[in-house]
C-alpha cells in the first residue's frame, strides 16, 4: 500500500525525463514509478504534480546553520526548514559555528539536532584545523567515522601551505573531501568587496581576485602531490574557473562548486552600501559572473551551492566594512538557476542534486535515480511559475536576502523527505 502518491508529474533524474507517477511506501522509500498509479481507495495522500517536474531532492554542499552559537540568526531547525522550502533533502553544515565543529562532541550535537528537526538529512562538515585557527589538525579520522564527509575551515582558508599539505596527506586515506574556502589572507585582509572599479569609486578596501586564485593554484598543486580529494568552495573568479578547468583537462580528480549569488550578482550591487550585498568571496564583475556560468555549463564546476549565510538585520545594518559577510540562499537557489542559467532543466537539477550528492558520497540516498527501493527524497518543481522575492516570506530567522523584489521563474511546490512531505504547495508543513 502506498503512503503517498505523486501524480501527474514528469520525472527528471539522472536517467532522463519521463511522464510517470511516483508511489512512496510507509517506510519512506519509493514503492513504484509507473505511468499511472491509481491511489483511489488506498488511503494514500495524493500530491498533485500536474504540469510540474518531479526531481530528486537537492543537496546543498554549503549551508551555514549557525547552531551552535548564533541562534539569533538561524537554528538547525529554521535553517533546514529553509532548505526544505528550497527543495533540499540534504545539507552539509559549515563548521564556523561557536564553538567550531572541530570535535566529536560538536559533530554529534549538530547531527542530533538535525535528526531532531527531521526536515532534511543534516550532514556536517568539520573543520580541518582546531578552532579553524589554522594551526593543528582536527581528529579527522574520528570525525570521519561519525559521518563527516567534508572537511573545511570555511569562513577562512588554511593559510599555512605545509599544514594544508599535511591535511591532504592525512585525509587522502579517509574517503573525505578536503574543501577549501580559497582566500589568501595576506592579500585579502582588510578587504570588504571585490577589488576593482567599484571598490575604487566607493572607497571600500578591496579583495583582489588573486587572493582566491593563488590558493586555488596551491591546492591544485598539493592535491596532485597528495592524491587527496580536493573540493573548491564558492569559486568566484575567471581565473579560478580557468585553473580548475585546466586541472580537470589534465585529468586531475577535483571538484568545485559555485554559489547562486556568484552567477547572478555583481560588485555594482554594493553601490548603495547595503551590506546585504556583502559576502565572501565578494560579488565580482560581470566577466566573472559570465565565467561562472560557463563553468557550470561545461562541467568545470560540479555543483551549485548556496552558501546560505544568515545574519541578523542588526548586524547587516552595521557600516559596510563592519557588517559580517553572507547572504541567504536556500529558498532562492532553484529559481535563480532557472532564471539566470541558460541550461536544460535536467542539467540544472543535476547541479543541485546528484552531482553535489556524489561529492560527499550521499548519492545512494539523495539525487540520481528515482527508482523503487531508494529513499523517497524528492521535490516537485514548477519550472514556469514566476514569483517575486519577499524577504519576509522565509523560514529563516534572518532577512539578509539580496533578491528582494526580484521576479524569478521556477518554484518549488512540494518537498518529500524520506517519504514525508516537508513542504506542500510552497509552504513548510512540518
Amino acid at each position, binding site marked *: 500500500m502506498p503512503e503517498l502518491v505523486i501524480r501527474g508529474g514528469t520525472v527528471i533524474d539522472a536517467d532522463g525525463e519521463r511522464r510517470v507517477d511516483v508511489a512512496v511506501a510507509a517506510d519512506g522509500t519509493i514503492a513504484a514509478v509507473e505511468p499511472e498509479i491509481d491511489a483511489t481507495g488506498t488511503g494514500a495522500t495524493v500530491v498533485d504534480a500536474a504540469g510540474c517536474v518531479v526531481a530528486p531532492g537537492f543537496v546543498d554542499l554549503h549551508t551555514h546553520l549557525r547552531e551552535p552559537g548564533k541562534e539569533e540568526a538561524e537554528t538547525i531547525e529554521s535553517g533546514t526548514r529553509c532548505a526544505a522550502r528550497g527543495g533540499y533533502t540534504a545539507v552539509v553544515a559549515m563548521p564556523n559555528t561557536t564553538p567550531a565543529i572541530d570535535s566529536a562532541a560538536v559533530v554529534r550535537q549538530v547531527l542530533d539536532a538535525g535528526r531532531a528537526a527531521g526536515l532534511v538529512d543534516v550532514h556536517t562538515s568539520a573543520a580541518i584545523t582546531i578552532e579553524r585557527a589554522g594551526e593543528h589538525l582536527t581528529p579527522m579520522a574520528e570525525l570521519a567515522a561519525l559521518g563527516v564527509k567534508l572537511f573545511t575551515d570555511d569562513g577562512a582558508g588554511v593559510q599555512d601551505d605545509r599544514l594544508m599539505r599535511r591535511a591532504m596527506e592525512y585525509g587522502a586515506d579517509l574517503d573525505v573531501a578536503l574543501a577549501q574556502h580559497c582566500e589568501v589572507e595576506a592579500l585579502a585582509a582588510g578587504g570588504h568587496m571585490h*577589488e*576593482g*572599479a567599484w*571598490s*575604487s*569609486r*566607493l*572607497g*571600500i*578596501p*578591496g579583495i*583582489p581576485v588573486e587572493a582566491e586564485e593563488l590558493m586555488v593554484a596551491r591546492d591544485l598543486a598539493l592535491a596532485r602531490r597528495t592524491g587527496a580529494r580536493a573540493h573548491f568552495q564558492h569559486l568566484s573568479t575567471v581565473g579560478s574557473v580557468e585553473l580548475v578547468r585546466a586541472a580537470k583537462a589534465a585529468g586531475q580528480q577535483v571538484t568545485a562548486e559555485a554559489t547562486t549569488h556568484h552567477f547572478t550578482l555583481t560588485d555594482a550591487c554594493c553601490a*548603495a*552600501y547595503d551590506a546585504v550585498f556583502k559576502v565572501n568571496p565578494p560579488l565580482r564583475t560581470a566577466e566573472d559572473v559570465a565565467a561562472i556560468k560557463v563553468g557550470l555549463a561545461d562541467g568545470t564546476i560540479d555543483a551549485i551551492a548556496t552558501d546560505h549565510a544568515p545574519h541578523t538585520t*542588526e548586524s547587516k*545594518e*552595521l*557600516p*559596510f*566594512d*563592519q557588517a559580517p559577510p553572507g547572504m541567504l540562499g536556500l529558498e532562492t537557489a532553484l529559481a535563480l538557476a532557472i532564471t539566470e542559467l541558460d541550461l536544460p532543466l535536467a542539467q540544472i537539477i543535476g547541479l543541485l542534486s546528484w552531482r553535489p550528492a556524489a561529492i560527499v558520497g550521499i548519492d545512494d540516498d539523495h539525487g540520481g535515480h528515482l527508482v523503487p527501493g531508494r529513499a523517497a527524497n524528492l521535490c516537485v518543481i514548477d519550472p514556469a511559475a514566476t514569483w517575486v522575492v519577499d524577504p519576509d516570506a522565509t523560514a529563516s530567522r534572518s532577512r539578509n536576502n539580496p533578491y528582494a523584489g526580484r521576479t524569478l521563474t521556477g518554484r518549488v511546490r512540494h518537498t518529500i523527505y524520506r517519504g514525508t512531505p516537508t513542504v506542500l504547495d510552497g509552504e513548510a508543513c512540518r
Partner: protein
Amino acid sequence: MKHLLAIDELGADGIAEIHRLADAFVEVNRRPIPKVPTLRGRTVVSLFFEDSTRTRLSFETAAKRLSADTMTFSVGTSSVKKGESVRDTIETIEAMGIDAIVVRHGSAGVPWQIARWSSAAVINAGDGWHQHPTQALLDTYTALGHLGSLDGRRVAIVGDIKHSRVARSNIAAFTLLGAEVVLVAPRTLLPPDLTDWPVRVVSDLDGVLGDVDVLYLLRMQRERMTESLVPSLREYARRFGLDRERAARLGDGAIVMHPGPMNRGVEIAGDITELPNVVVTEQVANGVAVRMAVLFWLLGADPVPTHEEEPADA
C-alpha cells in the same frame, strides 16, 4: 529631504549655487557682528564617529553664525562605544527634534545609511576613504577666488589618492567645473582601478610642476609606512614633497592647496608654508562660509514641505 552626501550629486550647477551663497556668507563673516538670524530655531547635530576637531568646529561655527542651535554628539564618551548601533543612535537623536545631521565616520557609506533612516538633512563631513564634499566645495571656492574660472585649468592632486576622501571629492568637483585633473602618486597610493575616472596619472611631480594652476598636496599618513605603501617618509618627501626649489618652478599665479593638517617636512617643506601662493589659511576661512552656504542651502533656501503657503511679501 535634501542631503549633501557626495559632490557628483550636486553637478556643476549645484556647486555654483553653493558658491554663490558662500559669497554672501563671506560678506557676513566680515561684519562686526558675523551672525545672521537665518536658521533660528533649527537644530544641527554634529555626529563625529571619528575625531576631527577642525571639521567639527568649522561646521559648528557655521551653524552658530546662522543662529542655529548646535548639539555635539560625542561618540567617544557615548553609548556607541558600548555597542549601540548607528541606527539606534540616529533614532535617539531624531527623537529630540533635529533638522540636520553632520556626520563623520571612518567607514565609507555611513551617511547614506543615515539618510535612509533619518528624516533630517544629512551632511557628509567625511566617510572613510570615500567622500568629503564640503572640503571639495571650499577648495574649489578658494581656487576660483584666485583663478577666476576653473575651465581648462590644470589641477595636480599629489599623494595618497587611494585612502583619500578629499581626493575623491575634489576630482569630482574640479572636473565638474571644467578643470583637468592629473593625479601624481606612486601606484601603491592610487586606487586599484581608475576605469572611468576623468584623470590623467603620472608618477613624476617635477614633470607637471611647471604647467599646473593648482597644486593640491594631500596629507601623508604616517601609518602608510607600516603598510609598506612607501618605503619611508624621506623617500616620499623626496619624490612628492613640495620644497622651496620645486615651489620656485611653479608657474605665475599657481596656487598650493592642502586640506590640513599639514605634515611639515613631508608633503610640504616647513619653510615654504608662508609663501603667498600657499592658500591653506584661506581654505580654512572659506570653510566656514561654504559650510554656512551648505546649511542654508539645505535648511533655508527651500520651503519646508509641511508648512502652509503664506502671503507673499513684496
